[in-house]
């Protein structure tokens, strides 16, 4: 079976500096994968390269989505096809409301799926309301400008709200747990869990084990210096918790 997302021997450079040095991984719909790694190991680089940030140059290897090589695609094409990135540092767009933005984004995604007609305004509002309730943000959220003056927690909730609206097939969550207090972490995790299921594959990128108390991955991978050095089940996360990255590094070097 063709994996939904298939990363093959991926090498990525940032400003000419090699960061990812041959990373391979498959993620299918219905699966939750966690990638854990120390600072500077290349986690955000992976997230950005997958989404098509032009600053991150794929020097060799491939990213296949449903078997199609998307490594040369612009970010918007990837987004419309069903790839999603929950950003570590979401960008503010002053003057553009969350609702307007989501209306445009949803329309673009529906169009790509062959549905030319935008969602009728009434249905759109209903959908917004439903998803905002899921993330426990109040109605005024829709009218606020994207990420403009949002608290750290609001930003992360807004990311998952977008994910809920756009219903991607593969969602990459880049350190979604960073900067969240326990309550916010719980709300965001519950949001992700509510969306997880047979139609969604999740690639959860994190430095800390903490979020894995809320979102349970079937697969855990350890990223060190641009390569996956170890893969396993959820027990690997606990091993990391106990021994730290150094323990893994030594073990894998041996």
């Amino acid at each position, binding site marked *: 079976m063709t994996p939904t997302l298939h990363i093959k021997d991926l090498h990525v450079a940032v400003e000419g500096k090699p960061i990812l040095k041959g990373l391979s991984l498959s993620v299918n719909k219905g699966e939750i994968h966690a990638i854990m790694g120390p600072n500077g190991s290349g986690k955000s680089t992976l997230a950005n390269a997958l989404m098509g940030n032009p600053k991150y140059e794929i020097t060799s290897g491939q990213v296949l989505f449903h078997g199609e090589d998307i490594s040369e695609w*612009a970010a918007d094409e990837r*987004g*419309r096809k069903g790839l999603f990135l929950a950003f570590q540092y979401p960008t503010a767009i002053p*003057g*553009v409301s969350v609702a307007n933005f989501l209306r*445009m984004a949803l329309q673009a995604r529906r169009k*790509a799926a062959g549905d030319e007609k935008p969602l009728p305004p009434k249905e759109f509002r209903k959908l917004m309301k439903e998803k905002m309730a899921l993330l426990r943000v109040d109605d005024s959220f829709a009218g606020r400008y994207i990420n403009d003056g949002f608290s750290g927690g609001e930003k992360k909730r807004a990311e998952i709200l*977008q994910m809920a609206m756009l219903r991607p097939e593969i969602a990459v969550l880049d350190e979604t747990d960073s900067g969240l207090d326990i309550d916010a972490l719980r709300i965001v995790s519950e949001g992700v869990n509510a969306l997880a299921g047979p139609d969604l594959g999740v690639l959860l990128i994190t430095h800390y084990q903490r979020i894995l108390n809320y979102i349970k991955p079937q697969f855990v991978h350890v990223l060190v210096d641009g390569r996956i050095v170890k893969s396993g089940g959820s027990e690997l996360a606990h091993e990391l918790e106990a021994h730290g990255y150094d323990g893994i590094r030594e073990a894998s070097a041996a």
Partner: protein
Amino acid sequence: MSDQQPQQPVLDIREGYKEKFGFHDDIAPVYKSRKGLDPEVVSTISEMKKEPAWMREFRLKSLEHFERKPMPTWGGRLSDIDFQDIYYYLKPVDEQGRTWEDVPADIKRTFDKLGIPEAEQKFLSGVGAQYDSETVYHKIKESLSAQGVIFLDTGSALEQHPDLFREHFGTVIPPSDNKFAALNSATWSGGSFIYVPKGVKVELPLQAYFRINAQNMGQFERTLIIVDEGAFVHYVEGCTAPIYATDSLHAAVVEIVVKKGGRCRYTTIQNWSNNVYNLVTKRAMAHEDATMEWVDANLGSKLTMKYPSVYMVGRGAHAEILSIAFAGKGQHQDAGAKVVHAAPDTTSNVMSKSISKDGGRAGYRGLVKVTKGSGGCKSTVKCDALILDEDSRSDTYPYMEIEEDMVSIGHEATVSKIGDEQLFYLMSRGIPEDEAAAMVVSGFIEPITKELPMEYAVEMNRLIQLQMEGSVG
């Protein structure tokens, strides 16, 4: 440092403009003055309009002012204008229409394409439509005329309300004010005349649309608005023109008087083709506790020099000037604002948003003046510039003349670029690059578009999208 912009071909720019606005009609005008300007041409205009002698004298005197006054050396590049290569008066039809059916089919089709009759039905109190030099259609809702509201083309107002007209005409902007005000005063034709009686509030906007059709045309409409005590009106103007390889000239004069406790809002969506020089003088007198609001959006033209101003001459008067200037390839928008606090406790708020792209140049030029004896004044000025690429330019020229101590003056300016992160963020959600850029721009001007009636806000964002199409690469 050179102020000179390289000459750019105008035919290949603003591609999207061509289809929607840049078309022209092949019509035979009823009358067309010969090219160029002299006392004979000016007298003929006056004769054709069957004006009283005082107006002809006014025009001829104004022509002398125009000829005497030197070209401004600041602002933008004006030296390419050839005043003798322009038609100063072009009368498209014999008579103004009272219904759209009276308007010749070709011309009506143009206004249909521009959506004017439809807008009139939906959300306006009245409409005037000017085509080259003359108004071809003018109408106000009967309920408003019954309340004494006057909305006429300016020539008809001179005929029908001579006293009211003469009392105010040329009092806010005398012909000697500047070279282009003098030119307008000599050659004026068309424009709107509005009078709103005491206490009457005109709920829906009155709109005028100015269309240039002929090549090498000069359009010199003249607008005079009088808002009596405690009254309110919102006037909206839009404009477009065909794309020609040669230049046209638009030099309007707009005079506004807002009496005690009255309020006037004047909204402009300027969308000329890129071969039009747009050199307009707009000024309002705000009396005691009156409010004057200019909402001024400039997206089109080759060069715009326009600085809507408010003279606050009565205690407690308030001025609001919100402007957008968008300069694309080959365009220079020298826009701005002027507030003169000539009475105590007057307040003003100026907000300017400029956008430049593809080598365009957009700027803010503004004056805040407080005269001696005008204590307790407050003024805030905020100018934000968004520059879309390395080739484009933004300038800010804030001037202040403060002759009083007990005042509060604030000025703030920012310059920003569209961030790569912003584009990547929006694109990651499936939005194509040019739409993403248009979104950032729409967001940037949102503090101003949110002041527009919904229909115009939608139009504004559509125009921004048009400006942005295929631009990023």
